[in-house]
């Protein structure tokens, strides 16, 4: 079975990554709920992880670096989103909304 799986060409993985990335970008740009926006950003970052791991196994020069890179990506994504959620909580306490389209105080 694992023998058969390794025959899956690289493009399939890249396609999954591309779809995840596009879905995430679409969600991040269009969703009104701020929590969903943060979730969509996580999707984009996970698309990167899929790419990196796929390249580490099936790229032109296979190696372990891609997997290490994805470890860094995972931790940094967690830190970034944790800060995002913390700021969102401060915002929610002051304004009582998590709707992105209500955040327009500075628009003239």
């Amino acid at each position: 079975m694992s023998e058969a799986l390794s025959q899956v060409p690289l493009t399939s993985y890249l396609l999954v990554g591309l779809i995840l990335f596009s879905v995430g970008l679409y969600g991040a740009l269009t969703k009104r709920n701020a929590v969903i926006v943060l979730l969509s950003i996580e999707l984009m970052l996970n698309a990167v992880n899929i790419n990196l791991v796929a390249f580490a196994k099936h790229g032109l020069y296979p190696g372990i670096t891609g997997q290490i890179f994805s470890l860094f990506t995972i931790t940094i994504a967690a830190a970034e989103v944790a800060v995002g959620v913390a700021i969102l909580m401060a915002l929610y306490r002051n304004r009582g909304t998590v709707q992105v389209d209500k955040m327009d105080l500075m628009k003239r």
Partner: protein
Amino acid sequence: MDITAWNWEVMTPEFIILGTATILSLIDLFMPDDRDRRFLGILGLLGVIAAGFYVIKFAGAEPVQIMNDMFRLDSFGTAFKLIFLTGVALLFILSIQYLNRQNQEVQYRGEFFYLVLTALLGMMIMASSADLITLFVGLEVLSVSSYILVGIRKKHLYSNESAFKYVVSGAIATAITLYGMSFIYGITGTTNLYDIAERLASAYQQGFSLMIYLGFFLMLVGLSFKIAVVPYHMWAPDVYQGAPTPVTAFLSVLSKAAGFAIIIRIFLSVFRSIVNYQSDAGSFYVLFQELNLYIAILAAASMIIGNTLALRQTNIKRLMAYSSIAQAGYILVPLVTFWGINFFSQTLFYLVAYLFMTLGAFAVIMVVTTDRGTEDIRSFAGLYHRSPFTAIAMTIFLLSLAGIPITAGFFGKFYIFMSSVLYENYWLAAVMMGTSIISYIYYFGIIRQMYMRPGDTEARLAVPLPAAFVIAVGVLGTVAVGLFPDLVLNYLNQNLQFTDMFARP
């Protein structure tokens, strides 16, 4: 592989900054809440000065790299680190003034100081690494610290909102950058910039150009977030307005300079080596003849959009945001017209000039807006009668930003303009000229407010000592660099061999 044998000494500045940040955070935690925390700023300032001492000590040496190029000390990194450290030192002095006892908006004062230090650490890593992973981690240390700094006024609605906008746009930019990096990694199998450069050239010959272009464009778009140029500039006005003024100054000067450091480092060392052989046209370097066109378009678009949208602004910090978008467009021009070793000195000269004039301008803005309690441009009305020296200093900063002779900004712009003309990139030079003239309108608008409009009050404006110091340093820097541009250029060219960026010891 003996890790202990590596020359860890070259990382001394980074270790000092890390240590200072750690110690500051521990002191802040175990100190009673009601104590004045401004001495933390002085401790931080000492740390920055110590780090600066070691950076100068190592300057001009042969490039050193440890941890398989993950850390690399070369002239390029040294020059940028000096800019960062000078900027952060001035910023600390400004912040000690900003976080005085009257200011009740920022409750977390200790955090303010050590977050600036961690951001500084991130910037220094961004300037001196030759590995994609390390560069990326540096970028994120800077980003995450600055997200918190923007939102540090926890009860302030604008601050909350701008921090959230900054996090969301920053995280999307990170994802885009990483997605681009993943393609570059995929066709080279390494994250070392020099190995990438070698393998990318052969990958290009083998027909993987599509992935190279994909990686290039995604990274360009993602990294343009940090320097706030066109495809990713929309966050700047809102974030600049909502952030506390010292943080706005930080974003507009230091974070931007760090963005340039990482962009120049990655693009010049990774994409430099790609050569395209065509039977009829011979061979040419892809980066310098093909991809540069796209950077040129971004630069031109930033100049046009930044300068025209600034015309309509009535909030001084929003105006500075659009102005900084345009300034970033100017600084991108030398990268487009990469013309020998002068490239580095041109870019750095402009960054030095930009550092002095922008930090000085923000110091004046901080004093005036806190005094009047509004960020409207009209708060500058009658400033000349209230405090002539502040008004004259602000005039010098604005003239320099606009690029009027005998200021630092003029020579910075002049060198960039000449490089564009020499490279026969006339349309970009024309755009730069035209938009500079447009920029006179809004810069002179502020000057007109200061001298010719009557203010609401004639009371003398008391400029506190730390802010006055920063303003004085800004004026001195701007005028001295403007009067003796050769001194700076000679120093840069003689002490720092920028081409060693391409050399791998």
